């Protein structure tokens, strides 16, 4: 029998079906402004796409990262105003302006050019008093040349960590949206898996995936979907800086052949949130005994980690359980992690088992309401390996599953 997804053993109870967008945005602003006041910041200027999404609730289909920086919406959060300001290319878009008052919506700003910065700083100067303390998440050199509002007395306060902290714990409204995005992803993956067969190209799988996510309500795709054919041995794959696996590698028109071991990794954007999905498939035949044994080892590692996963546990508790279950080795790729947070970004805090180091893992405490993706791997050099991802909500008692996709064909 095919093992069902995680929900076969645990039923989620904490994740509502419907989100209240207005309440969600009010909760976010309360958090952000609380952190601003604690640091004495009067205005927070945000350029990073996902930071703007978090602070304003604006939703737009994210563009190719090559052109993302010049069509970028910009957000300004004021400590003494419950609504943020949004400077955006298309002002009259219902999805952009959902919860913002009209006088907080402004036309596009081009912060790569001195002329654009001048127009922006004039607007900003009208919103904040002279001598205001400004925080920013990033800046252009044109912004750096502005000395009347922004770079008055040196470098602005680092605004990125404020958003990183504010967004780590999800509200019930946020969980409802995340669950919808994960469902859309699983629906599309189900169509893709039905198509998996020898002769099909990787790009054909992507064609099905992209069509289904948009038909099912996705706002955007966020990652060129990965359907990587894994080599039997690390040495058969590309050279790496770590000497370990090269993954994820971009998909091509490569035709799948019977017996290919496929590592899947995809994600979409819905309601401002990113989803994540990972499974291992075998093309055109049932997994053999060795592959099933890899899957069983993966399950035992995942179970060992899940046993210690709860609010109050440290990242080191999780990595320790994983290493012990894997017989003393780290069962994850060294350039990534055992697990990562998921939300407005496809990978965000908390990072579990990353190269930030063991001291960081020991100090990172999981909190109720965090969403964690666990992605251990089992690798058997000469016989490839198994990798899947599970998305969890961290609770006081332990965790709840956010997805329920089966492990088929294992």
């Amino acid at each position, binding site marked *: 029998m095919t093992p069902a997804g995680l929900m076969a053993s645990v039923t989620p109870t904490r994740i509502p079906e419907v989100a209240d967008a207005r309440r969600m945005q009010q909760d976010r602003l309360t958090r952000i402004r609380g952190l601003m006041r604690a640091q004495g910041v009067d205005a927070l200027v945000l*350029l990073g*796409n996902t930071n703007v999404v978090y602070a304003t609730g604006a939703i737009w*289909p*994210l*563009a*190719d*990262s*090559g*052109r*993302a920086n*010049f069509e*970028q919406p910009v957000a300004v959060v004021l400590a003494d105003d419950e609504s943020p300001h949004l400077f955006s290319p*298309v002002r*009259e*878009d219902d999805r*952009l302006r959902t919860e913002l008052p009209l006088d907080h919506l402004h*036309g*596009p*700003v*081009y912060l*790569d050019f001195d002329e*654009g910065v001048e*127009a922006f700083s004039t607007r900003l100067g009208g919103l904040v008093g002279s001598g205001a303390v400004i925080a920013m*998440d*990033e*800046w252009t*050199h044109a912004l*750096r040349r502005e000395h009347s509002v922004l770079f008055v007395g040196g*470098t602005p*306060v*680092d*605004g*990125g960590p404020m958003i990183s902290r504010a967004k780590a714990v999800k509200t019930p409204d946020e969980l409802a949206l995340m669950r919808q995005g994960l469902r859309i992803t699983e629906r599309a993956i189900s169509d893709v898996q039905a198509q998996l067969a020898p002769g099909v190209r990787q790009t054909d799988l992507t*064609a*099905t995936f*992209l*069509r*289904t*996510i*948009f*038909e099912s*309500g996705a706002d955007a*795709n*966020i*990652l*060129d979907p990965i359907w990587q054919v894994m080599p039997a041995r690390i040495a058969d794959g*590309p*050279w*790496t*800086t*770590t000497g370990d696996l*090269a993954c*994820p*590698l*971009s998909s091509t028109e490569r035709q799948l052949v019977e017996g290919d071991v496929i590592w899947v990794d995809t994600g979409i954007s819905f309601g401002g949130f990113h989803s994540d999905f990972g499974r291992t498939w075998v093309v055109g035949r049932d997994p053999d005994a060795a592959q099933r044994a890899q899957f069983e080892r993966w399950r035992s590692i995942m179970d060992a980690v899940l046993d210690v996963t709860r609010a109050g546990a440290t990242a080191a508790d999780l990595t320790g359980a994983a290493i012990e279950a894997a017989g003393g080795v780290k069962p994850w790729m060294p350039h*990534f992690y055992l697990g990562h947070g998921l939300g407005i970004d496809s990978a965000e805090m908390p990072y579990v088992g*990353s*190269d*930030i*180091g063991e001291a960081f893992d020991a100090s990172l405490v999981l909190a109720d309401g965090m969403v964690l993706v666990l992605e251990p791997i089992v690798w058997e050099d000469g016989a490839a390996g198994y990798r899947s991802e599970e998305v969890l909500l961290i609770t006081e008692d332990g965790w709840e599953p956010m997805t329920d996709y089966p492990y088929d064909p294992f």
Partner: protein
Amino acid sequence: MEAEGIDVLVVGREGNARYVSGAPRLWTAGSHPFGPGCVLVRSSGAVHLLSTWDEGVPDEIPHENLYGISFNRMTFLKVLQNIEGADSVRTVATDALSPSSALMLPKAFPSADLVDAEPMLRRVRRVKTPDEVEAIRGSVAVAEQSLAAALRALAPGVTERQLTGVFMEAMSTRGVTTPTGQDVASITSREHPWHRTSRDEPVRDGDLVAFEAGVVLGGYAGELGRTSIVGDRPVDPSLSKQWSELWDRLLSACQAGASCASLLEAYDTAGVPTPPMPVARGLGLGFDLPLVTHALPGLAAEQHLEAGMVLALTGYVWKEGVGALFGQEPILVTHSGPEALSTVPYRS
């Protein structure tokens, strides 16, 4: 770099990293926080690239110049400190900055001034080589074929999102899985010149539906835009006439040597308000010049069209009660006038 006195170039932006390294990278949507994605050292010509593996990396970049994905800022600091001459170079240029990189770069390059790399990068990227023009032409061809599939699916009842899905499927079936934008179809509003609705409303008979089709192939963006009416009926004649007048004026303004302000003037003389999106923007590896928008009149006046520039030229006319005609054409500026890079250029 020599002319600008730049010793080391550190780029984080995707378009610049594509240009400097020549390496296609895993496509992701949206902006990335600034980080050292690619480093070019002037004295040796060495390129150091953020890539954990050598797949797709040009042979000119040796393994020892690759550095891997890291979540630890100290790792990147060490990478930069190990670059030849890091402790003595005088001028380091970056294309953007973040609070953490503003702290890290002076530690990595203690003797250097930190300067703006964008003016130089824009200058070298704005005029395309013949190979680059062919790359863009190839991207445009895929966008055009995929758009044709979406246009065939345009019928009463279909939603904007479904049309986007049809475009994405057709694009991927052609072997390209990376769009430039993901907002492919939009019903133009009859009540407001730029209004967008939920993307889930079904199109109705007589709607003017605008399409923005773009793909990234080999790093190069190819984009075009078209408007189609739902159902077998003619477009409002006065709107069509206004479109033709505007489009003729825009094309006439696309001459090598002309001021970019003439593209904004084309709207004025046609009696059409300029749209919120740029009237022209460069096509290439990402953010390329020229950039012509009513929001930056000074920049428009400073720039001149040059032979070899490739730009997405945008026309937009709207009539109350009818909707809008939107068109975008990938144009190569040549000494003998504008050359459309699509197979079936937009008619006027």
